[in-house]
């Protein structure tokens, strides 16, 4: 009976949705959506794992590859973007000490991103549109293999997500630069210069140091958002190009696929796509590490000026790093392979290594610390990137790429460990840290479930990456199917690790639902009764 009561009202009935500000609601809505999409990603991941062991549960290889197409996109846009947008819509006003520029626009972002994700996921699920997220030309326009109608809805869904992302980008920069009503005029230009790192850069060459107007984590948000703007433009442009072919096909015209150069396409698409993987993710993660280290220790970040410089360097690195995805493309100029693919990529070892060291040093300077959930997950996130970044640097080598490209090594120890252990655990650390703030002091239902969440996620993520990596070193390709059980042992072990990840997700999901209650979850989606632009009820004037 007590369980049912808690399930409905939340732990000790502490969570009161009526007392939430519109900003808290937006953040919580994003968290709920992110959790649901993450659930889809984990379940689909498990379905693919099982299918790779024994071809069961799915209708065939068409469905397998349709899931493989949607899986990373739902993970990035549906889960990670939602979690990041929700957290940053809350954190940015908190850091800038002024309200978000537009709550209405933030709500639009929520609906566009979630609806867009659902549309492309559903279109892929129904039509088996499966050109994979890489969309190598002219595969997305291969209508002998894929449904043109399904593909049209799929690309439209992605375009809707990009529209929502555009609104997020505008909101971030406007929030940094604008002057709230009744406030003294804010120096918009100086604020933006500080946010994108120009002030810090200028300070390196002048004796008259200018003050940093924007806190370090807010600067990281701004710089990551620059990369987000570029990649949104590239994805939208590519989407429109594919849509042109789709619409033409629907109207009965067969456009020449050779009109688009496949290698040039690959270059611009990877340039844009890599602004997510090697751009905003790394910058946002570094910013979140700094924020968490500050929140956990109550101290300034160690070597703050260097941290700012490293963020600016990472931004520039992210614009010139894409060619490591084309090291196996023989027509790609050798100069690009060596300079962009190898040398610039190696800089990520330095920029991410600096962020790693600075965060650890900040934590160390405040010893002894209590091992809270957010600290635990932060250490997990740091571990994830410490494992995944060097794996990426290794495969971004002309020699090693020849025998690693497109194997399970790339997607295991590098991608899955970076995303699942590095990125996701960092975001979970932020969720645990912000939970009391966005819920007005709601209590976590169970610390035991939080511990299960941590250990199962850590071992599951590292284990999955390790076993996939071992299979990759034995020659297993990442975008293929092995029907004769060639790699069954590795896939069974990776599947068991996947089961740990599923357990971790269920523990977290149950813990959050039991903490806020079903009544609370429903209440989050009701309109706010408090009319304020402030973050917390106490801040309302």
């Amino acid at each position, binding site marked *: 009976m007590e369980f049912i009561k808690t399930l409905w009202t939340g732990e000790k009935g502490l969570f009161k949705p009526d007392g939430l500000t519109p900003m808290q609601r937006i953040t919580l809505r994003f968290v709920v959506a992110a959790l649901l999409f993450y659930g889809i990603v984990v379940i689909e991941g498990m379905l693919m794992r099982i299918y790779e062991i024994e071809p069961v549960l799915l209708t065939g290889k068409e469905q397998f590859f349709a899931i493989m197409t949607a899986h990373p996109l739902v993970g990035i846009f549906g889960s990670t973007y939602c979690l990041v947008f929700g957290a940053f819509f809350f954190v940015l006003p908190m850091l800038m000490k002024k309200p978000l520029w537009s709550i209405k626009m933030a709500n639009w972002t929520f609906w566009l991103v979630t609806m867009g994700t659902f549309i492309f996921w559903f279109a892929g699920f129904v039509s088996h549109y499966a050109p994979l997220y890489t969309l190598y030309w002219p595969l997305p326009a291969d209508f002998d293999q894929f449904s043109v109608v399904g593909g049209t809805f799929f690309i439209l869904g992605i375009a809707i997500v990009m529209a929502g992302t555009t609104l997020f980008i505008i909101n971030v920069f406007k929030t940094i630069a604008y002057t709230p009503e009744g406030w003294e005029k804010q120096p918009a230009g100086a604020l933006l210069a500080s946010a994108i790192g120009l002030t810090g850069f200028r300070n390196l060459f002048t004796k008259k140091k200018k003050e940093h107007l924007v806190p370090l984590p807010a600067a990281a948000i701004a710089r990551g958002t620059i990369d987000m703007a570029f990649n949104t433009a590239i994805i939208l442009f590519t989407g429109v190009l594919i849509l042109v072919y789709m619409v033409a096909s629907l109207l009965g015209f067969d456009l020449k696929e050779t009109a688009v150069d496949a290698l040039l396409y*690959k270059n611009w698409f990877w340039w844009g796509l890599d602004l997510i993987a090697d751009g905003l993710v790394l910058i946002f993660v570094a910013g979140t590490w700094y924020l968490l280290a500050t929140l956990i220790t109550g101290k300034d970040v160690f070597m703050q000026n260097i941290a700012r410089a490293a963020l600016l360097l990472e931004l520039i690195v992210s614009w010139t790093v894409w060619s490591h995805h084309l090291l196996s493309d023989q027509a790609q100029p050798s100069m690009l392979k060596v300079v962009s693919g190898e040398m610039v990529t190696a800089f990520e070892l330095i920029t991410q290594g600096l962020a790693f060291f600075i965060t650890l040093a900040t934590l160390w300077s405040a010893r002894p610390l209590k091992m809270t959930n957010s600290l635990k997950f932060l250490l997990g996130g740091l571990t994830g990137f410490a494992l995944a970044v*060097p794996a990426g640097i290794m495969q971004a080598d002309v*020699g*090693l790429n020849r025998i690693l490209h497109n194997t399970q090594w790339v997607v295991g120890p590098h991608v899955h460990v970076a995303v699942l252990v590095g990125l996701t655990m960092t975001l979970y650390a932020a969720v645990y840290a912000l939970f009391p703030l966005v819920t007005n002091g709601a209590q976590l239902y169970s610390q035991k479930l939080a511990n299960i969440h941590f250990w199962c996620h850590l071992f599951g993520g590292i284990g999955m990456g390790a076993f996939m990596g071992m299979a990759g070193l*034995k020659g297993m390709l990442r975008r*293929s199917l092995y029907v004769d059980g060639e790699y069954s042992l590795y896939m069974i072990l990776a599947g068991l690790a996947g089961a740990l990840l599923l357990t971790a997700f269920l523990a977290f999901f149950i813990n959050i639902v039991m903490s806020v209650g079903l009544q609370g979850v429903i209440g989050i989606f009701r309109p706010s009764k408090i009319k304020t632009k402030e973050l917390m009820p106490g801040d309302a004037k």
Partner: protein
Amino acid sequence: MENLFFLAKNAIFIYHFIFKGSIHLKQGGTMVDSNVVLFGQTLAYTLYCIAILLLMGWFGMRITTKTGSNVVKPALFYSFVGFLVVLGVSLHIVTYNTIPWSPVDLNRSDYTPDKKFEITVANHEFQLPAEKLTIECHDLVLFDVTSHDLTYGFGLFRQDNTMVFQMQVVPGHRNDILWKFDKPGVYSIRSTEYSGPRGVPMIVKDAVEVLACEESTKE
């Protein structure tokens, strides 16, 4: 002054290592097996992973206790930065000089192949110039692969499914790779890039045979 001398000495050493290194594949030289390279990589990465997991475990325990100093000296920070720079730069110098196909790959026009195979791909099928591509031991072979529709991959795999090498096959562009075979063996060709569900069975079993050579063990 001493530091400058140290730097200059190392710069000369690195220059010799890169440009005068004797490990580069010369016409007639031998090429190390890709499995050997993978073994080295596996060993290095495994040791690194163990070290980093132990470090993070130790850090996690020590951070909750108050023993020793809390001060992190900037010297440690700058040493770490220096270490990362050296590591980042040296990795590719080391691989360029120890993985024999790296310089070959980047300077393909400097080499004259002993044999050349022109292969085409269309409609998810490889069209080979012969049923079996036969290679003499120690031959430097050029595989020139052309796609007439989609982006594919071209990979050579051993009997135990491990990879010898692979490259992307992009339509409208030249896709060629030079490889030297110093061991006898029978290899399969497989597309290493996804080209839709129809591309899954793009495998040509036992398509390449390297004939027996002296002082070698058959794979």
